[in-house]
Protein backbone atom coordinates (compact mmCIF):
# COMPACT_ATOMS: atom_id res chain seq x y z
CA UNK A 1 0.00 0.00 0.00
CA UNK A 2 1.41 3.40 -0.94
CA UNK A 3 1.91 6.01 1.70
CA UNK A 4 -0.69 8.78 1.22
CA UNK A 5 2.03 11.43 1.33
CA UNK A 6 3.67 10.00 -1.79
CA UNK A 7 0.91 11.63 -3.82
CA UNK A 8 1.90 15.04 -2.45
CA UNK A 9 5.54 14.83 -3.52
CA UNK A 10 4.98 16.29 -7.02
CA UNK A 11 3.52 19.35 -5.31
CA UNK A 12 6.73 19.86 -3.35
CA UNK A 13 8.74 19.46 -6.55
CA UNK A 14 6.54 22.09 -8.18
CA UNK A 15 7.05 24.48 -5.26
CA UNK A 16 10.80 23.91 -5.46
CA UNK A 17 10.69 24.85 -9.14
CA UNK A 18 8.61 27.94 -8.33
CA UNK A 19 11.18 28.94 -5.72
CA UNK A 20 14.06 28.67 -8.19
CA UNK A 21 12.11 30.59 -10.84
CA UNK A 22 11.32 33.34 -8.31
CA UNK A 23 14.96 33.60 -7.32
CA UNK A 24 15.91 33.77 -11.01
CA UNK A 25 13.35 36.49 -11.78
CA UNK A 26 14.52 38.52 -8.82
CA UNK A 27 18.17 38.25 -9.87
CA UNK A 28 17.44 39.14 -13.49
CA UNK A 29 15.17 42.11 -12.86
CA UNK A 30 16.10 45.60 -11.71
CA UNK A 31 17.78 48.80 -12.86
CA UNK A 32 19.62 46.68 -15.43
CA UNK A 33 17.99 43.56 -16.80
CA UNK A 34 20.22 40.52 -17.06
CA UNK A 35 19.45 37.65 -19.42
CA UNK A 36 19.15 34.10 -18.02
CA UNK A 37 22.27 32.88 -19.83
CA UNK A 38 24.36 35.76 -18.59
CA UNK A 39 23.00 35.33 -15.07
CA UNK A 40 24.10 31.70 -15.07
CA UNK A 41 27.68 32.56 -15.99
CA UNK A 42 27.72 35.58 -13.65
CA UNK A 43 26.73 33.33 -10.75
CA UNK A 44 29.70 31.04 -11.16
CA UNK A 45 32.46 33.13 -12.80
CA UNK A 46 33.87 36.48 -11.84
CA UNK A 47 34.15 38.60 -14.99
CA UNK A 48 35.01 41.66 -12.92
CA UNK A 49 32.13 43.45 -14.67
CA UNK A 50 29.56 45.83 -13.20
CA UNK A 51 26.94 43.17 -13.73
CA UNK A 52 28.97 40.76 -11.63
CA UNK A 53 29.06 43.30 -8.84
CA UNK A 54 25.34 44.07 -9.15
CA UNK A 55 24.52 40.41 -8.82
CA UNK A 56 26.94 39.48 -6.08
CA UNK A 57 26.93 42.63 -3.97
CA UNK A 58 23.31 43.73 -4.31
CA UNK A 59 20.78 41.37 -5.83
CA UNK A 60 21.99 37.99 -4.63
CA UNK A 61 22.31 38.97 -0.94
CA UNK A 62 18.99 40.78 -0.98
CA UNK A 63 17.20 38.01 -2.85
CA UNK A 64 18.54 35.31 -0.57
CA UNK A 65 17.71 37.38 2.53
CA UNK A 66 14.23 37.94 1.16
CA UNK A 67 13.74 34.25 0.52
CA UNK A 68 14.98 33.34 3.99
CA UNK A 69 12.84 35.97 5.72
CA UNK A 70 9.77 34.88 3.73
CA UNK A 71 10.40 31.25 4.61
CA UNK A 72 10.92 32.06 8.27
CA UNK A 73 7.71 34.13 8.40
CA UNK A 74 5.70 31.38 6.73
CA UNK A 75 7.11 28.82 9.15
CA UNK A 76 6.33 31.01 12.16
CA UNK A 77 2.76 31.48 10.91
CA UNK A 78 2.32 27.75 10.37
CA UNK A 79 3.58 26.96 13.86
CA UNK A 80 1.33 29.56 15.49
CA UNK A 81 -1.66 28.18 13.61
CA UNK A 82 -0.88 24.70 14.91
CA UNK A 83 -0.37 26.03 18.44
CA UNK A 84 -3.58 28.04 18.56
CA UNK A 85 -5.45 25.53 16.40
CA UNK A 86 -6.78 28.50 14.56
CA UNK A 87 -6.23 29.05 10.86
CA UNK A 88 -6.20 32.81 11.37
CA UNK A 89 -3.29 32.88 13.79
CA UNK A 90 -0.11 34.64 12.80
CA UNK A 91 2.75 35.92 14.98
CA UNK A 92 1.86 39.48 14.01
CA UNK A 93 -1.60 39.15 15.42
CA UNK A 94 0.01 38.27 18.76
CA UNK A 95 1.86 41.58 18.90
CA UNK A 96 5.38 40.22 18.41
CA UNK A 97 6.23 42.64 15.62
CA UNK A 98 4.57 45.48 17.55
CA UNK A 99 6.97 44.97 20.43
CA UNK A 100 9.89 44.94 18.02
CA UNK A 101 8.64 48.10 16.30
CA UNK A 102 8.31 50.03 19.56
CA UNK A 103 11.87 49.10 20.51
CA UNK A 104 13.31 50.07 17.13
CA UNK A 105 11.40 53.34 16.87
CA UNK A 106 12.45 54.19 20.40
CA UNK A 107 16.08 53.58 19.43
CA UNK A 108 15.67 55.77 16.34
CA UNK A 109 14.05 58.51 18.39
CA UNK A 110 16.92 58.43 20.88
CA UNK A 111 19.37 58.68 17.99
CA UNK A 112 21.06 55.34 18.67
CA UNK A 113 23.33 54.17 15.85
CA UNK A 114 21.91 52.11 12.98
CA UNK A 115 23.73 48.98 14.15
CA UNK A 116 21.49 48.91 17.21
CA UNK A 117 18.33 48.41 15.19
CA UNK A 118 18.45 44.65 14.69
CA UNK A 119 19.34 43.81 18.30
CA UNK A 120 16.69 46.26 19.52
CA UNK A 121 14.07 44.65 17.29
CA UNK A 122 15.01 41.21 18.54
CA UNK A 123 14.90 42.40 22.15
CA UNK A 124 11.54 44.12 21.63
CA UNK A 125 10.04 41.02 20.04
CA UNK A 126 11.35 38.81 22.85
CA UNK A 127 10.01 41.21 25.48
CA UNK A 128 6.60 41.11 23.83
CA UNK A 129 6.71 37.31 23.72
CA UNK A 130 7.56 37.04 27.40
CA UNK A 131 4.92 39.61 28.33
CA UNK A 132 2.28 37.68 26.41
CA UNK A 133 3.43 34.44 27.98
CA UNK A 134 3.24 35.94 31.46
CA UNK A 135 -0.17 37.50 30.88
CA UNK A 136 -1.86 34.62 29.08
CA UNK A 137 -0.27 31.54 30.56
CA UNK A 138 -2.22 30.71 33.67
CA UNK A 139 -1.63 27.07 34.37
CA UNK A 140 -2.81 25.72 31.05
CA UNK A 141 -2.92 26.78 27.42
CA UNK A 142 -6.22 28.35 26.69
CA UNK A 143 -5.86 29.27 23.05
CA UNK A 144 -8.65 31.84 23.14
CA UNK A 145 -7.06 33.59 26.06
CA UNK A 146 -3.68 33.60 24.33
CA UNK A 147 -5.17 34.95 21.10
CA UNK A 148 -7.18 37.67 22.84
CA UNK A 149 -4.27 38.74 25.04
CA UNK A 150 -2.08 38.90 21.93
CA UNK A 151 -4.59 41.02 20.04
CA UNK A 152 -4.91 43.45 22.94
CA UNK A 153 -1.15 43.56 23.37
CA UNK A 154 -0.77 44.34 19.65
CA UNK A 155 -3.27 47.19 20.03
CA UNK A 156 -1.22 48.54 22.93
CA UNK A 157 2.00 48.41 20.91
CA UNK A 158 0.23 50.13 18.05
CA UNK A 159 -0.80 52.99 20.35
CA UNK A 160 2.80 53.31 21.55
CA UNK A 161 4.00 53.33 17.93
CA UNK A 162 1.67 56.24 17.14
CA UNK A 163 2.90 57.97 20.26
CA UNK A 164 6.56 57.66 19.25
CA UNK A 165 5.78 58.72 15.68
CA UNK A 166 3.99 61.84 16.86
CA UNK A 167 6.98 62.78 19.02
CA UNK A 168 9.55 62.18 16.27
CA UNK A 169 11.19 64.97 14.29
CA UNK A 170 9.97 65.02 10.66
CA UNK A 171 13.40 64.06 9.21
CA UNK A 172 13.24 60.72 10.95
CA UNK A 173 9.70 59.86 9.91
CA UNK A 174 10.38 58.31 6.45
CA UNK A 175 12.98 55.91 7.89
CA UNK A 176 10.62 54.93 10.68
CA UNK A 177 7.70 54.39 8.32
CA UNK A 178 9.82 52.23 6.00
CA UNK A 179 10.86 50.08 8.93
CA UNK A 180 7.27 49.79 10.12
CA UNK A 181 6.10 48.66 6.71
CA UNK A 182 8.85 46.11 6.29
CA UNK A 183 11.80 46.66 4.02
CA UNK A 184 14.54 44.47 2.62
CA UNK A 185 16.83 47.18 1.21
CA UNK A 186 19.20 46.90 4.15
CA UNK A 187 19.10 43.12 4.30
CA UNK A 188 22.40 42.50 2.52
CA UNK A 189 23.94 39.74 4.62
CA UNK A 190 21.94 36.58 3.91
CA UNK A 191 24.02 34.24 6.09
CA UNK A 192 22.11 34.99 9.29
CA UNK A 193 18.57 34.70 7.88
CA UNK A 194 19.50 31.58 5.93
CA UNK A 195 20.96 30.06 9.09
CA UNK A 196 17.81 30.89 11.04
CA UNK A 197 15.71 29.39 8.27
CA UNK A 198 17.74 26.18 8.24
CA UNK A 199 17.47 25.74 12.00
CA UNK A 200 13.76 26.55 12.03
CA UNK A 201 13.11 24.17 9.16
CA UNK A 202 14.97 21.30 10.81
CA UNK A 203 13.21 21.81 14.14
CA UNK A 204 9.80 22.03 12.45
CA UNK A 205 10.37 18.94 10.31
CA UNK A 206 11.31 17.05 13.43
CA UNK A 207 8.12 18.30 15.10
CA UNK A 208 5.87 17.74 12.07
CA UNK A 209 4.25 14.39 13.04
CA UNK A 210 3.53 15.72 16.52
CA UNK A 211 2.07 18.93 15.09
CA UNK A 212 -0.43 16.79 13.18
CA UNK A 213 -1.57 15.28 16.47
CA UNK A 214 -1.72 18.66 18.20
CA UNK A 215 -4.42 19.66 15.72
CA UNK A 216 -6.56 16.77 16.98
CA UNK A 217 -6.98 18.60 20.29
CA UNK A 218 -4.86 18.63 23.44
CA UNK A 219 -6.56 15.78 25.29
CA UNK A 220 -6.51 13.48 22.29
CA UNK A 221 -2.90 14.32 21.51
CA UNK A 222 -2.00 13.56 25.13
CA UNK A 223 -3.92 10.29 24.97
CA UNK A 224 -1.84 9.30 21.93
CA UNK A 225 1.41 9.83 23.80
CA UNK A 226 2.31 13.49 23.15
CA UNK A 227 3.65 15.57 26.06
CA UNK A 228 1.33 18.35 25.07
CA UNK A 229 2.37 21.00 27.61
CA UNK A 230 6.00 20.72 26.60
CA UNK A 231 5.10 20.70 22.93
CA UNK A 232 3.05 23.90 23.31
CA UNK A 233 5.85 25.76 25.03
CA UNK A 234 8.34 24.55 22.43
CA UNK A 235 6.16 25.59 19.47
CA UNK A 236 5.49 28.95 21.08
CA UNK A 237 9.17 29.68 21.69
CA UNK A 238 10.24 28.43 18.27
CA UNK A 239 7.60 30.46 16.42
CA UNK A 240 8.35 33.54 18.47
CA UNK A 241 12.11 33.33 18.02
CA UNK A 242 11.64 32.87 14.27
CA UNK A 243 9.39 35.93 14.15
CA UNK A 244 11.80 37.98 16.24
CA UNK A 245 14.64 37.05 13.89
CA UNK A 246 12.61 37.91 10.79
CA UNK A 247 11.43 41.22 12.21
CA UNK A 248 14.91 42.24 13.26
CA UNK A 249 16.19 41.59 9.71
CA UNK A 250 13.42 43.02 7.59
CA UNK A 251 11.03 44.98 9.76
CA UNK A 252 7.36 44.28 10.09
CA UNK A 253 6.33 42.39 6.94
CA UNK A 254 2.77 41.19 7.24
CA UNK A 255 0.62 38.54 5.58
CA UNK A 256 3.35 36.13 4.45
CA UNK A 257 2.90 34.12 7.63
CA UNK A 258 -0.86 34.05 7.22
CA UNK A 259 -1.14 33.53 3.47
CA UNK A 260 1.50 30.91 2.71
CA UNK A 261 0.27 28.10 4.97
CA UNK A 262 -3.27 28.88 3.86
CA UNK A 263 -2.66 28.67 0.14
CA UNK A 264 -0.83 25.43 0.71
CA UNK A 265 -3.57 23.86 2.84
CA UNK A 266 -6.02 24.40 -0.02
CA UNK A 267 -4.09 22.02 -2.24
CA UNK A 268 -1.93 19.95 0.11
CA UNK A 269 -4.20 19.10 3.02
CA UNK A 270 -3.19 19.34 6.65
CA UNK A 271 -0.17 17.09 7.06
CA UNK A 272 2.69 19.11 8.48
CA UNK A 273 5.28 16.85 6.90
CA UNK A 274 4.21 18.51 3.63
CA UNK A 275 3.11 21.86 5.05
CA UNK A 276 6.45 22.63 6.72
CA UNK A 277 8.73 22.41 3.68
CA UNK A 278 5.94 23.64 1.38
CA UNK A 279 5.26 26.78 3.43
CA UNK A 280 8.94 27.64 3.50
CA UNK A 281 9.22 27.36 -0.28
CA UNK A 282 5.98 29.26 -0.89
CA UNK A 283 6.64 32.00 1.70
CA UNK A 284 10.17 32.49 0.41
CA UNK A 285 9.00 32.68 -3.21
CA UNK A 286 6.18 35.09 -2.39
CA UNK A 287 8.43 37.50 -0.54
CA UNK A 288 11.12 37.36 -3.24
CA UNK A 289 8.54 38.16 -5.92
CA UNK A 290 6.94 40.90 -3.83
CA UNK A 291 10.37 42.43 -3.20
CA UNK A 292 11.22 42.29 -6.90
CA UNK A 293 8.02 44.21 -7.60
CA UNK A 294 8.79 46.64 -4.76
CA UNK A 295 12.19 47.38 -6.29
CA UNK A 296 10.99 47.80 -9.83
CA UNK A 297 7.35 48.96 -9.99
CA UNK A 298 8.10 52.67 -9.64
CA UNK A 299 11.89 52.56 -10.17
CA UNK A 300 14.10 54.35 -9.37
CA UNK A 301 12.01 54.75 -6.26
CA UNK A 302 11.68 51.71 -4.01
CA UNK A 303 8.57 50.73 -2.14
CA UNK A 304 8.74 49.04 1.23
CA UNK A 305 7.98 45.39 0.50
CA UNK A 306 5.49 45.22 3.37
CA UNK A 307 3.18 47.55 1.44
CA UNK A 308 3.11 45.09 -1.44
CA UNK A 309 2.62 41.99 0.69
CA UNK A 310 -0.34 43.70 2.34
CA UNK A 311 -1.74 44.97 -0.98
CA UNK A 312 -1.52 41.47 -2.43
CA UNK A 313 -2.30 39.71 0.81
CA UNK A 314 -5.62 41.34 1.62
CA UNK A 315 -7.47 40.45 -1.61
CA UNK A 316 -5.82 37.04 -1.75
CA UNK A 317 -6.87 36.31 1.79
CA UNK A 318 -10.45 37.43 1.17
CA UNK A 319 -10.54 35.25 -1.92
CA UNK A 320 -9.35 32.22 0.01
CA UNK A 321 -11.84 32.92 2.77
CA UNK A 322 -14.74 33.04 0.33
CA UNK A 323 -13.60 29.98 -1.57
CA UNK A 324 -14.23 28.04 1.61
CA UNK A 325 -11.25 27.29 3.75
CA UNK A 326 -10.09 23.70 4.07
CA UNK A 327 -9.78 24.15 7.81
CA UNK A 328 -12.88 25.83 9.07
CA UNK A 329 -13.05 27.17 12.57
CA UNK A 330 -14.56 24.58 14.91
Amino acid sequence: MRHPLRRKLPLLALLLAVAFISLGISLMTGSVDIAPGELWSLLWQNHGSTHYRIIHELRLPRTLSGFAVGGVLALAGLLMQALLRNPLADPYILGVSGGAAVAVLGAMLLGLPFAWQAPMAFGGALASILLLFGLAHSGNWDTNRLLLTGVVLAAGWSALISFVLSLSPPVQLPGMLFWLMGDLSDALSPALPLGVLALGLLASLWLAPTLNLALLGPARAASLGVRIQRLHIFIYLLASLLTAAAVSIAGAIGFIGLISPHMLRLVAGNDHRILVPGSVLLGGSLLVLADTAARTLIAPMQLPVGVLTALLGVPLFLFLLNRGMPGRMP
Partner: protein
Amino acid sequence: MTPLLSTQTLSLQIGATQVCRELDLEIAPGQCWGILGPNGAGKTTLLHTLAGLHPGDAGRILYGDRRLPDIHPRELAKLRGVLFQNEPQSLPGTLFESVLAGRHPHLGRLGWETPLDLKLARQAIQATGLQGLEERSVHTLSGGERQRMEIAMLLAQAPGLGMLDEPSNHLDPDQQILMLRLLKDRFTQYRRALIMVLHDINLAMRFCDHLLLLKGNGQQLMGPAGEIATEENIQWLYQHPVSLLKTEGTACFYFL
Protein backbone atom coordinates in the same frame (compact mmCIF):
# COMPACT_ATOMS: atom_id res chain seq x y z
CA MET B 1 -4.02 -12.67 37.33
CA THR B 2 -2.71 -9.07 37.47
CA PRO B 3 -5.43 -6.57 36.65
CA LEU B 4 -4.86 -4.34 33.61
CA LEU B 5 -5.83 -1.31 35.60
CA SER B 6 -6.31 -0.87 39.31
CA THR B 7 -6.77 2.00 41.71
CA GLN B 8 -5.89 2.10 45.38
CA THR B 9 -7.93 4.47 47.57
CA LEU B 10 -8.38 6.89 44.66
CA SER B 11 -10.20 10.08 45.61
CA LEU B 12 -11.22 12.70 43.11
CA GLN B 13 -12.98 15.99 43.51
CA ILE B 14 -13.95 18.63 40.92
CA GLY B 15 -15.22 21.85 42.39
CA ALA B 16 -17.85 20.91 44.94
CA THR B 17 -18.44 17.47 43.44
CA GLN B 18 -16.84 14.50 45.14
CA VAL B 19 -16.57 12.11 42.21
CA CYS B 20 -15.25 9.12 44.12
CA ARG B 21 -13.84 8.45 47.55
CA GLU B 22 -11.18 5.83 48.30
CA LEU B 23 -12.07 3.87 45.22
CA ASP B 24 -10.43 0.45 44.87
CA LEU B 25 -11.15 -0.57 41.33
CA GLU B 26 -9.69 -3.59 39.58
CA ILE B 27 -10.17 -4.21 35.89
CA ALA B 28 -9.06 -7.68 34.89
CA PRO B 29 -8.40 -8.83 31.32
CA GLY B 30 -11.58 -9.83 29.52
CA GLN B 31 -13.85 -7.63 31.63
CA CYS B 32 -16.18 -4.95 30.36
CA TRP B 33 -16.96 -2.21 32.86
CA GLY B 34 -19.70 0.39 32.68
CA ILE B 35 -19.64 3.68 34.60
CA LEU B 36 -23.10 5.07 35.29
CA GLY B 37 -24.26 8.12 37.14
CA PRO B 38 -26.35 11.27 36.90
CA ASN B 39 -25.21 14.27 34.85
CA GLY B 40 -22.37 16.16 36.48
CA ALA B 41 -21.35 13.25 38.69
CA GLY B 42 -17.85 13.38 37.17
CA LYS B 43 -17.92 10.21 35.05
CA THR B 44 -15.84 11.75 32.28
CA THR B 45 -13.36 13.28 34.72
CA LEU B 46 -12.91 9.91 36.41
CA LEU B 47 -12.31 8.27 33.02
CA HIS B 48 -9.73 10.94 32.13
CA THR B 49 -8.09 10.53 35.53
CA LEU B 50 -7.82 6.78 35.05
CA ALA B 51 -6.32 7.48 31.61
CA GLY B 52 -3.69 9.75 33.14
CA LEU B 53 -5.02 12.89 31.45
CA HIS B 54 -6.21 14.53 34.65
CA PRO B 55 -4.56 14.42 38.08
CA GLY B 56 -6.32 12.61 40.94
CA ASP B 57 -6.43 14.08 44.44
CA ALA B 58 -5.26 11.12 46.48
CA GLY B 59 -4.54 7.44 46.00
CA ARG B 60 -2.79 5.51 43.28
CA ILE B 61 -3.53 4.37 39.76
CA LEU B 62 -1.65 1.35 38.47
CA TYR B 63 -1.35 -0.18 35.03
CA GLY B 64 -0.31 -3.77 35.70
CA ASP B 65 2.01 -3.30 38.63
CA ARG B 66 3.39 0.09 37.52
CA ARG B 67 2.25 3.41 38.86
CA LEU B 68 0.79 5.84 36.37
CA PRO B 69 3.37 8.65 36.72
CA ASP B 70 6.22 6.22 36.03
CA ILE B 71 4.91 5.25 32.60
CA HIS B 72 6.18 7.20 29.59
CA PRO B 73 3.25 8.87 27.75
CA ARG B 74 4.07 7.04 24.55
CA GLU B 75 4.10 3.68 26.25
CA LEU B 76 0.91 4.56 28.11
CA ALA B 77 -0.68 5.17 24.71
CA LYS B 78 -0.16 1.49 23.93
CA LEU B 79 -1.62 0.41 27.29
CA ARG B 80 -4.82 2.43 27.05
CA GLY B 81 -6.73 4.37 24.42
CA VAL B 82 -9.49 6.90 24.93
CA LEU B 83 -12.62 7.49 22.89
CA PHE B 84 -13.47 11.13 23.59
CA GLN B 85 -16.87 12.64 23.79
CA ASN B 86 -16.29 16.30 22.89
CA GLU B 87 -12.86 16.80 21.47
CA PRO B 88 -13.26 19.13 18.53
CA GLN B 89 -10.80 18.86 15.66
CA SER B 90 -9.66 22.10 14.16
CA LEU B 91 -8.01 22.26 10.75
CA PRO B 92 -9.04 18.63 10.25
CA GLY B 93 -7.61 16.44 7.55
CA THR B 94 -9.21 13.49 5.80
CA LEU B 95 -10.89 10.59 7.54
CA PHE B 96 -8.02 8.31 6.59
CA GLU B 97 -5.41 10.70 8.02
CA SER B 98 -7.35 10.92 11.28
CA VAL B 99 -7.67 7.17 11.67
CA LEU B 100 -4.00 6.79 10.81
CA ALA B 101 -3.17 9.23 13.62
CA GLY B 102 -4.28 6.47 15.98
CA ARG B 103 -1.14 4.57 15.00
CA HIS B 104 1.10 7.31 16.39
CA PRO B 105 2.21 5.51 19.58
CA HIS B 106 3.47 2.62 17.46
CA LEU B 107 5.55 4.66 15.01
CA GLY B 108 9.32 4.89 15.00
CA ARG B 109 11.44 7.90 15.87
CA LEU B 110 10.73 9.73 12.63
CA GLY B 111 6.99 9.34 12.94
CA TRP B 112 6.65 7.70 9.54
CA GLU B 113 3.89 5.13 9.00
CA THR B 114 4.88 1.69 7.71
CA PRO B 115 2.72 -0.37 5.31
CA LEU B 116 1.50 -2.28 8.37
CA ASP B 117 0.19 0.95 9.93
CA LEU B 118 -1.62 1.82 6.69
CA LYS B 119 -3.11 -1.66 6.58
CA LEU B 120 -4.33 -1.53 10.17
CA ALA B 121 -5.91 1.88 9.56
CA ARG B 122 -7.74 0.52 6.51
CA GLN B 123 -8.93 -2.50 8.46
CA ALA B 124 -10.25 -0.25 11.24
CA ILE B 125 -12.12 1.83 8.66
CA GLN B 126 -13.65 -1.31 7.17
CA ALA B 127 -14.60 -2.69 10.59
CA THR B 128 -16.57 0.48 11.32
CA GLY B 129 -18.23 0.44 7.90
CA LEU B 130 -16.63 3.66 6.72
CA GLN B 131 -14.98 2.33 3.58
CA GLY B 132 -15.40 4.70 0.65
CA LEU B 133 -15.19 7.76 2.91
CA GLU B 134 -11.39 7.63 3.37
CA GLU B 135 -10.67 10.79 1.42
CA ARG B 136 -13.56 12.81 2.84
CA SER B 137 -12.61 15.84 4.91
CA VAL B 138 -13.52 15.24 8.53
CA HIS B 139 -15.71 18.33 8.80
CA THR B 140 -18.01 17.07 6.05
CA LEU B 141 -18.86 13.90 7.99
CA SER B 142 -22.17 13.49 9.80
CA GLY B 143 -22.23 13.12 13.57
CA GLY B 144 -22.62 9.37 13.37
CA GLU B 145 -19.84 9.00 10.80
CA ARG B 146 -17.58 11.14 12.99
CA GLN B 147 -18.29 8.90 15.97
CA ARG B 148 -17.52 5.78 13.95
CA MET B 149 -14.30 7.45 12.76
CA GLU B 150 -13.34 8.00 16.41
CA ILE B 151 -13.99 4.33 17.07
CA ALA B 152 -11.84 3.41 14.04
CA MET B 153 -9.04 5.58 15.45
CA LEU B 154 -9.21 3.65 18.70
CA LEU B 155 -9.21 0.32 16.87
CA ALA B 156 -6.14 1.43 14.90
CA GLN B 157 -4.43 2.47 18.13
CA ALA B 158 -5.16 -1.04 19.47
CA PRO B 159 -4.39 -0.41 23.14
CA GLY B 160 -4.76 -2.97 25.90
CA LEU B 161 -7.53 -1.10 27.65
CA GLY B 162 -10.25 0.76 25.78
CA MET B 163 -11.69 3.73 27.70
CA LEU B 164 -14.86 4.95 26.08
CA ASP B 165 -16.75 8.12 26.89
CA GLU B 166 -20.33 7.77 25.63
CA PRO B 167 -19.49 5.44 22.72
CA SER B 168 -23.11 5.40 21.54
CA ASN B 169 -23.26 9.18 21.02
CA HIS B 170 -24.70 10.31 17.67
CA LEU B 171 -25.21 6.71 16.56
CA ASP B 172 -28.49 5.32 15.23
CA PRO B 173 -29.96 2.49 17.33
CA ASP B 174 -28.69 -0.22 14.99
CA GLN B 175 -25.21 1.35 14.86
CA GLN B 176 -25.15 1.62 18.66
CA ILE B 177 -25.49 -2.12 18.89
CA LEU B 178 -23.11 -2.85 16.01
CA MET B 179 -20.38 -0.54 17.30
CA LEU B 180 -20.63 -1.67 20.92
CA ARG B 181 -20.60 -5.29 19.79
CA LEU B 182 -17.50 -4.55 17.68
CA LEU B 183 -15.73 -2.78 20.55
CA LYS B 184 -16.61 -5.45 23.05
CA ASP B 185 -15.49 -8.14 20.65
CA ARG B 186 -12.11 -6.46 20.06
CA PHE B 187 -11.43 -5.41 23.61
CA THR B 188 -12.37 -8.44 25.64
CA GLN B 189 -10.05 -10.86 23.83
CA TYR B 190 -6.28 -11.22 23.99
CA ARG B 191 -5.97 -9.99 27.57
CA ARG B 192 -7.63 -6.71 26.80
CA ALA B 193 -10.47 -4.99 28.64
CA LEU B 194 -13.00 -2.23 28.24
CA ILE B 195 -14.37 0.49 30.47
CA MET B 196 -17.07 2.85 29.28
CA VAL B 197 -19.15 5.75 30.48
CA LEU B 198 -22.76 5.27 29.40
CA HIS B 199 -25.98 7.22 29.71
CA ASP B 200 -28.15 4.35 28.69
CA ILE B 201 -28.51 1.88 31.53
CA ASN B 202 -29.94 -0.68 29.15
CA LEU B 203 -26.90 -0.57 26.88
CA ALA B 204 -24.81 -1.08 30.01
CA MET B 205 -27.02 -4.04 31.02
CA ARG B 206 -26.51 -5.53 27.61
CA PHE B 207 -22.76 -5.15 27.20
CA CYS B 208 -21.13 -4.69 30.61
CA ASP B 209 -20.30 -7.48 33.03
CA HIS B 210 -19.27 -5.05 35.77
CA LEU B 211 -20.72 -1.72 36.81
CA LEU B 212 -19.49 1.29 38.74
CA LEU B 213 -22.25 3.61 39.91
CA LEU B 214 -21.20 7.15 40.81
CA LYS B 215 -23.67 9.22 42.76
CA GLY B 216 -21.65 12.45 42.55
CA ASN B 217 -21.47 12.98 46.30
CA GLY B 218 -18.65 10.59 47.05
CA GLN B 219 -20.94 7.57 47.26
CA GLN B 220 -20.13 4.77 44.89
CA LEU B 221 -21.20 1.21 44.24
CA MET B 222 -19.40 -1.36 42.16
CA GLY B 223 -19.35 -5.02 41.34
CA PRO B 224 -20.67 -7.60 38.90
CA ALA B 225 -23.53 -6.19 36.83
CA GLY B 226 -26.01 -8.84 38.01
CA GLU B 227 -25.53 -7.82 41.64
CA ILE B 228 -25.38 -4.06 41.11
CA ALA B 229 -28.16 -3.50 38.60
CA THR B 230 -31.14 -3.80 40.91
CA GLU B 231 -34.26 -1.67 40.87
CA GLU B 232 -33.30 -0.30 44.25
CA ASN B 233 -29.78 0.75 43.23
CA ILE B 234 -30.82 2.35 39.95
CA GLN B 235 -33.62 4.24 41.67
CA TRP B 236 -31.10 5.43 44.28
CA LEU B 237 -28.65 6.47 41.56
CA TYR B 238 -30.99 8.54 39.40
CA GLN B 239 -33.56 9.51 42.05
CA HIS B 240 -36.31 8.36 39.75
CA PRO B 241 -38.78 5.49 40.05
CA VAL B 242 -37.79 2.58 37.85
CA SER B 243 -38.92 -0.96 37.27
CA LEU B 244 -36.94 -3.91 35.97
CA LEU B 245 -38.74 -5.77 33.19
CA LYS B 246 -37.65 -9.32 32.54
CA THR B 247 -38.47 -11.34 29.49
CA GLU B 248 -36.86 -14.55 28.40
CA GLY B 249 -33.09 -14.09 28.70
CA THR B 250 -33.07 -10.27 28.76
CA ALA B 251 -33.78 -7.68 31.38
CA CYS B 252 -34.32 -3.99 30.92
CA PHE B 253 -35.03 -0.97 33.05
CA TYR B 254 -38.16 1.04 32.43
CA PHE B 255 -38.09 4.57 33.86
CA LEU B 256 -41.58 5.40 35.08
